[in-house]
């Protein structure tokens, strides 16, 4: 366990230079923007005068040079302070802490759904490549894969929430319901059904296709032929040999896709009015809130790093050839 902890720490430390590149890049990008946080603020006030704008810029430290602001931000981060959001007029740390769980729930559920269902269906499709079942599943997944998620989300909302009224239209939980514990969890789960379906479908399709092609590849390899030669039952070869190996590229893909999934949740959060990271990023961009956007992007990047780390650990656990090196010698 201590070794695992060290591995995690080393990996996170290793990603520091990359995170620094991200930070500087975002800073430079925002600096070249037309309009700053004060412009956005004045818009929300319906106007103001020039002196007011100057006062506000001084108050939020927007009158310094890029380098100074960058160094100031770095200093803040070094002290573990995420800074102050100009657009929300609040410290950023608590804002992130509020929004992160919603996005994590959304992404986590969508990932779990698409991974479990996608890999299961992928095994079914890949069991007999070219069969009717395979064609139906492959074709269906291609169709799902091609549908824009926001469009799917809108249609799902209209059908299941507005017409049938089975599920709530939007939000992450019933507003100010005062629910707690299990009742609240059930409430959140109900709210997540549609967004998770809209976000998860694409990845379900993707994972199905990867699993299927992984299976197809596994069938061409010696060890599945060897398993047949050993007279193992069909289901056993499928699950224990072909599927097990086909799972590896899928797990790799899971890590690669974590960034894309986080990006996809931006649109879904917008469609379903879920106060998560994507919405926060949109607000930060609209409000030209550099510290907030920076924090959102860095946190996202960190989440992707952690997701990749988890995936690598899972990979190491699935594939004895990687990592440990311990064992029989």
């Amino acid at each position, binding site marked *: 366990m201590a070794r695992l902890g060290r591995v995690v720490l080393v990996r996170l430390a290793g*990603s520091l*230079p*990359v*995170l620094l*590149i*991200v930070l500087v*890049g*975002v800073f430079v*990008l*925002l600096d*070249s*923007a*037309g309009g700053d946080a004060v412009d956005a603020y004045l818009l929300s006030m319906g106007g103001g005068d020039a002196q007011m704008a100057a006062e506000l810029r001084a108050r939020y430290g927007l009158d310094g040079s890029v380098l100074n602001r960058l160094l100031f931000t770095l200093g803040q981060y070094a002290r573990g302070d995420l800074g102050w959001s100009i657009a929300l007029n609040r410290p950023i740390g608590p804002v992130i802490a509020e929004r992160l769980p919603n996005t994590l729930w959304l992404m986590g559920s969508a990932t779990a759904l698409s991974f479990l269902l996608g890999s299961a269906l992928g095994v079914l499709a890949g069991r007999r490549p070219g069969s009717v079942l395979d064609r139906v599943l492959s*074709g269906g997944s*291609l*169709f799902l*894969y*091609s*549908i*824009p*998620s*926001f*469009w799917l989300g*809108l249609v799902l909302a*209209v059908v299941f929430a*507005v017409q049938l009224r089975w599920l709530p239209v939007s939000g992450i939980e019933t507003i100010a319901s005062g629910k707690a514990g299990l009742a609240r969890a059930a409430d959140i789960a109900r709210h997540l059904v549609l967004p998770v379906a809209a976000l998860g479908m694409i990845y379900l399709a993707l994972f199905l296709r990867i699993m299927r092609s992984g299976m197809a590849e596994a069938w061409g390899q010696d060890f599945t032929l060897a398993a047949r030669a050993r007279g193992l039952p069909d289901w056993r070869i499928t699950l224990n040999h072909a599927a097990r190996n086909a799972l590896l590229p899928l797990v790799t893909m899971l890590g*690669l896709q974590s*960034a*894309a*999934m*986080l*990006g*996809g949740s*931006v*649109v879904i959060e*917008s469609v379903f009015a879920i106060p998560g990271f*994507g919405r926060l*990023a*949109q607000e930060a*961009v*609209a409000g030209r809130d550099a510290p907030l*956007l920076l924090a*959102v*992007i860095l946190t*996202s*990047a960190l989440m*992707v*790093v952690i997701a*990749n780390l988890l995936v690598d650990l899972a990979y190491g656990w699935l594939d004895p050839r990687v990592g440990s090196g311990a064992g029989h010698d």
Partner: protein
Amino acid sequence: MTRPFLRRPEALLGGAILLALILIAGLAPLIAPGDPLAIAGRPLIPPFTDAGLPLGTDRLGRDLLAELIHGARTSVAVGLSAALVAVFAGMTVGTAAGFAGGAIEAALMRIVDAFQIVPGFLLALAFVSVMGPSLWVVVLAIALGAWTGPARLARARVLSLRESDFVAAAKVMGMSPAEIAFRQIMPLALPPVLAVASVIVAAAVLTEAALSFLGLGDPNSVTWGAMIAEGRNQLRSAAYLSIIPGIALVLTVISTYLVGEALTDSLTGRDKR
């Protein structure tokens, strides 16, 4: 290569749709002359009710068919340009990293990592908001999130090819590194990257639509994404406004995937042989 490609019925179907689409995109000014954003009739004419405006009109009375045809042009252009930029940038960086090795490779790959861990859509969102949503900015924004794939692929391919016997043979023969790089390795590193390019094209079309959905499309040109986004407000009163471009979008993406898949199979298949 052609035979296994054409033998697959789904590849044939995808190819046919894609070909039709490219034809429509190329001939758009001839099929639907004039500005597609021009007001052509009463607003919100439903489809198939007016012979002159077969697909009806939108909120502002613009000809939906003309918009659709010109939208094909933008979608194809955005998809292809974004893929082109991403593949070109990725190939260049990936090949450079693969050849250079050492510190240069490490530095380049850290940059690739940086782009890879930032959600591409988030980056595109910020980029377009900041630079203003012109078509080129959108193309660049999409490419920004898509070039790392080709970069990694190209690098991996270059690394493995660099160690292969025929490269060693060329070296022993006295061939210069530049010639080995560009005449021997590059042509072979390209096919898998090109195969991925079709996925990038499809993803770019979808990303453009999503950006337009969030109001970050170029207002000077018609795109299917913007049409869907506009139509979503009338999703329940005039659903055709977003369904028609939606179908066009899904068809395009599906056909791109189909062709890409067939292409991948035949490209990688040839390499094996």
